[in-house]
Each structure stands twice: as C-alpha cells, then as structure tokens.
C-alpha cells in the first residue's frame, strides 16, 4: 500500500513541477534535462513516502534512501525514454499493438525499475530487490499504459496521472513484497508492506 501511494504521489508531483517550468526550459536545455528533473522529483517523493514504512520496520538512514531513489528515478526515466524511442524505431508499427506496443512499454518500465532497484539495493542490501523492481516496473508500466488507453473507466480517465502511478506502484510493491517475505526477520528493512 505504501508503494502504491508513493508512486501515485511521485508521478503527480513530478508532473506538477515539470508543468510549472516555462517551456523555454525544454527548448533550451533539451528534453533529457527535463526528464531528469522529472525523475529526481519523482524519486524524492517515492523515497520520502517509502521511508514511512522503512523507518517503522528497520534500520534505514533516511537521507541515503531518499537520495538514491532520486538518483534511480532520474537515471531510470532517462533510460526508459531512450529505450522506448529506440524500440519504437526498431519495431514495426504494423504488427500487433499488444506485442509491439507491449514490448516497448514493458521494456521501458523494466529499465526504469532496474535503475530504481539498483539504486535502492545499495541501501536495502538485497540483490533480489533489483530483479523484483525491474519485473514489477515492467509489468506495472505496461499494465498502466494499457489500462489507461484501452479501458473506458471514468475514474481512471479523470485521474489519469495518479492512476498511472498507482498501477505502476501496485506491481512494483507486489514484486518487492515477494522479496521481503523471503527475507523477513526482526531487523528487516522493509520498503513495502
């Protein structure tokens, strides 16, 4: 539940911050600087919210956790954009949207999750955290994109940005939760509950 809230809040705040910056920012510095900023803000929100669970469950220093999540978010979103654009050029658009589009979205999400997982695992000290984050984010990113495009659910359409983050967070939280179950012990440094 913490991770769902964290990711929903993360994308919502990040879009607000990026939207508040005048357009010349993008034109002058380029889209990659903008998406790095998006990832930093996203990571800060995710890291801070996850600390609520972390501090109650174990011994994680709040500063390093938040900073590494910010770094993971920045690198992850930049890499996801590059991977998505590259695959978009390589994969024929005339094929099945489920296979072609799905491959692009899932791979982009997996790259995002990989970056966040690598960054957070340096604090969480669990190598399986990396795999769980990558798999969860890949499935979550793909599911969020598909659900918001294909399903005509008014509440999702009306809350598109937090809904995207919540679906992404749901899948990452479930995957990370699987890791935590395997490692659960009194000194566990849990991020998902």
């Amino acid at each position, binding site marked *: 539940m913490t991770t769902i809230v964290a990711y929903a809040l993360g994308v919502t705040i990040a*879009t607000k911050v990026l939207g508040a910056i005048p357009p010349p920012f993008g*034109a002058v510095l*380029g889209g990659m600087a903008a*998406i790095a900023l998006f990832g930093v803000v996203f990571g800060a929100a995710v890291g801070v919210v996850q600390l609520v669970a972390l501090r109650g469950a174990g011994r994680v220093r709040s500063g390093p956790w938040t900073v590494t999540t910010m770094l993971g978010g920045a690198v992850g979103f930049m890499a996801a*954009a590059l991977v998505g654009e590259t695959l978009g050029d390589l994969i024929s658009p005339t094929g099945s949207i489920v296979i072609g589009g799905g491959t692009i*979205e899932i791979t982009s999400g997996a790259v995002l999750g990989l970056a966040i997982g690598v960054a957070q695992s340096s604090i969480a000290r669990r190598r399986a955290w990396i795999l769980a984050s990558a798999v969860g984010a890949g499935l979550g990113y793909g599911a969020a994109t598909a659900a918001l495009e294909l399903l005509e659910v008014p509440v999702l*359409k009306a809350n598109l940005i937090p809904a*995207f983050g919540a679906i992404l967070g749901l899948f990452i939280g479930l995957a990370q939760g699987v890791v935590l179950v395997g490692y659960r012990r009194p000194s566990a440094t849990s991020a998902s509950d």
Partner: protein
Amino acid sequence: MRSAALTALGVLLAACGPAVQVAVPVNTRGAPLPTQATCIPTDQDQYAYRPARLQVIAACLRITGTIVSSTVEADGDVHINVRLDPDYEGVLTPENREAQGNLVVEPVCQFPAVQAEAIRVCASDGDPLHDGLPAVGAHVFMEGRYVLDLQHHGWAELHPLYRWGAAP
C-alpha cells in the same frame, strides 16, 4: 471506389515503410480535399512521439465535423473522435470502424505526460496548441497532418492538430 483506392494505396505504402507523403486525398465524390493550398502546418509534427507509427498521407488537411468524444491520454495527447460532415467522409479508411466510424484527431502535448518518451518530447515543445479544445457536440473545422496510425489498425487521423474553430 476512390475511397477504396485511397485505402489500398495507404495499405500498400504502409507495407513499404513509414513517413512517406503519398497522395492528395479525395472525398467520396472524387473531388480533391483542401490540403496545403488552404492549410498550413505548424511546428507540432516533431512533437508527435514515436513517429514511425504515423504514415503521412498529406502534410495538412482541413475537415469539418462534430465532436463526438474527447479523452486525455497518458502520453499527454488528447484523443478526439469527430463525426465528419458528408463531404469529408472520404478521408476515412475502413479501419476507422474501430473508432466507431469517426475521424481520430490528436492535438499533442496538451497535458502533462507520464510515459517516459512523451515526457522528453513534450518538454521540448515550446509552443503547443493554445486554442483550448472544442466541447463535445461542437460543429468545428479542424486542420492537421493527415496520417494513418499504423499502431492502431491503420485508421485515419489528423495528428497533430494544428488549429480548429467554429465551422461556418
């Protein structure tokens, strides 16, 4: 007949590769539809992310019709379904049945995007369409790049939308 020929041409070109300007569209009576002569593109083409999915048929096309629905998407675009006036029905392909027989119109970078590719692309868009968007039920003219969306069955779209206004 001409509509079918246009469709066949579009499908053939879709198989050959993306982003080729191919034909002047005609309406159901065979008359050319207004394109570059009365319709001027803006700089928005470069902000349509994942461009390989869009098969360009004409650089600019003007249509008139009635707004049926309008929804925001995760890539920051708006998906507008337009019921075309009879003179313009020839721009539709059979694949537009997937859009309930409507023309799909997509102004780009209208809202904050959450998909990574679109965030990057839209952050570079210093001058997105500022006209606001038409309400459902409005009878409007619209001008945009006339494309087949190869990722969505090959249906016809105006993507991006350049401008719109009340139809005369």
